[in-house]
């Protein structure tokens, strides 16, 4: 009656319980972060339209541009990062938050702080910006206690952990530099404005945002692409070089040492080029030749990073304000905002599927994750994002204000389509 027991694989070692259910935060914690972040994507995209023409005139140090940039950085990027790491930490690095309640408090502080910063910058009200800065700093301090400090000794995947840690180190430095800039706004001290803003932007976008993607992406991209056989050597060098480059540039700008700014820029560029090479290897070694819309959008975001690399080097060499503005747009909106949107296009349907069907795995007739999403809708949004960024960046670099507004409108259309899609996914039964 009974078949003989087949011999198990000699190397098989049971390791069940890698991410036990009690290590995961309640689902509503990352979900609340994602909802807040999506709201910021909508606000930032809508505000980009009136702000774009000024960028095309080379005016990148305006209050409107600063307000819009913070919708994308603090609102869309940092909020998404907090939420994603509560979910990813236990599974990717075996690091879980100390307290879910502290996670909700962090979100409330960060959301309120971001709103005050954006309103204060948009209306040029330094007191409001200062209050917002304090709340954002309090949120970051709480997050550092709750999750960040635990990354110091990551039991699994230390390279990812240290890269994420370096990213948050850059965020801390960026916040301190913002504090120094705030002091000049309040008349407490005088520090050269352009140097501080340049350091702040690089720490936020190239330091925090890009390092975070280098860390977390080294886990997610091969998983999404089924490309674990790809060589990993470029990725090992990318993050350390990028981090070193950002730091050298920061010191160079603050100490007015031109050679350090240029040298740091080159080191950063090499780090980013290696990351692009690594990403190319993941794509080339994928098991699935056809890319789904979200992975195509990841590829588009990587192309925007490549364009940002070239534009950034040109801006560094010439100092032309319009090239600086185009670089900022490409790295913050084209690279980071579009990449995060691509990840959302992948994880929101997946989380929806998990929420609805995970208890029924093994039953016949269950839909696939892809069946939940109207592919044409995602394709149109993705195309509008790419066309919007290409138009916007080209218009800003060439000094064409009307075209810049058109590019921003296309970007806003893409964001609107995505937000509507997610709202439908969340509410449809």
């Amino acid at each position, binding site marked *: 009656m009974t078949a003989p027991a087949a*011999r198990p694989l000699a190397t098989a070692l049971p390791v069940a319980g890698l991410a036990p259910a009690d290590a995961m935060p309640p689902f509503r914690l990352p979900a609340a972060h994602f909802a807040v972040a999506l709201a910021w994507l909508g606000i930032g995209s809508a505000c980009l339209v009136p702000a774009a023409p000024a960028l095309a005139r080379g005016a990148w140090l305006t209050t409107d541009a600063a307000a819009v940039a913070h919708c994308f950085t603090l609102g869309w990027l940092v909020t998404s990062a907090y939420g994603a790491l509560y979910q990813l930490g236990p599974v990717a690095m075996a690091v879980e938050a100390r307290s879910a309640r502290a996670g909700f408090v962090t979100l409330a502080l960060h959301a309120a702080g971001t709103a005050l910063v954006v309103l204060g910058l948009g209306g040029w009200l330094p007191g409001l910006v200062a209050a917002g800065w304090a709340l954002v700093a309090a949120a970051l301090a709480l997050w550092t206690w709750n999750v960040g400090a635990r990354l110091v000794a990551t039991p699994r995947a230390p390279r990812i952990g240290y890269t994420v840690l370096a990213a948050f180190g850059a965020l801390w430095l960026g916040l301190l530099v913002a504090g120094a800039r705030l002091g000049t706004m309040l008349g407490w001290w005088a520090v050269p404005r352009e140097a501080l803003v340049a350091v702040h932007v690089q720490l936020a976008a190239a330091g925090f945002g890009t390092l975070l993607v280098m860390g977390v992406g080294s886990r997610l991209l091969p998983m999404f692409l089924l490309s674990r056989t790809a060589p990993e050597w470029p990725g090992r060098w990318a993050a350390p070089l990028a981090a070193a480059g950002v730091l050298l540039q920061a010191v160079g700008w603050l100490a007015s040492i031109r050679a350090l700014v240029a040298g740091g820029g080159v080191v950063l560029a090499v780090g980013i080029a290696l990351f692009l090479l690594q990403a190319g290897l993941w794509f080339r070694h994928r098991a699935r030749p056809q890319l789904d819309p979200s992975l195509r959008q990841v590829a588009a975001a990587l192309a925007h990073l490549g364009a940002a690399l070239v534009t950034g080097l040109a801006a560094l060499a010439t100092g032309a304000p319009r090239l600086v503005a185009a670089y900022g747009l490409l790295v913050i909106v084209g690279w980071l905002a579009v990449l995060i949107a691509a990840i959302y296009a992948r994880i929101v349907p997946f989380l929806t*599927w*998990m929420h609805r069907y995970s*208890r029924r*795995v*093994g039953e016949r007739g*269950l839909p*696939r994750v*892809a069946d939940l999403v109207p592919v044409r809708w995602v394709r149109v949004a993705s195309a509008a994002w790419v066309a919007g960024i290409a138009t916007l960046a080209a218009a800003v670099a060439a000094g064409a204000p009307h075209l810049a507004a058109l590019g921003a409108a296309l970007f806003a259309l893409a964001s609107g389509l995505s937000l509507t899609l997610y709202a439908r996914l969340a509410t449809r039964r």
Partner: protein
Amino acid sequence: MTLTPDAVRQALDTVQDPELGLGLVALGLVYDVAIAGPDVTVTMTFTAEGCPLGDAIEAGVRRVVGALPGVGQVRVHVTFSPPWCPERIDPAALQVLRGDAES
């Protein structure tokens, strides 16, 4: 009816990865099926460590194998040694995956 590893594997292949739309056996995630009396031990892996669907898939495995006639206890051993790689996908399933454009 005799309980065989093939019958268990057939049942396991009805548990599908919701992203790839392929069964666990076709994906090469099932490393071993051991039958001892009425008890079944499935040694399997996931496409990545810390797969967010891990618990749900384990529960699905218990459910479909437990529903087979004559099965007593179902044990699931999850292992990442050796780790899963795309080369483990059944060639026929890989063809389906390669042609799976937008779905």
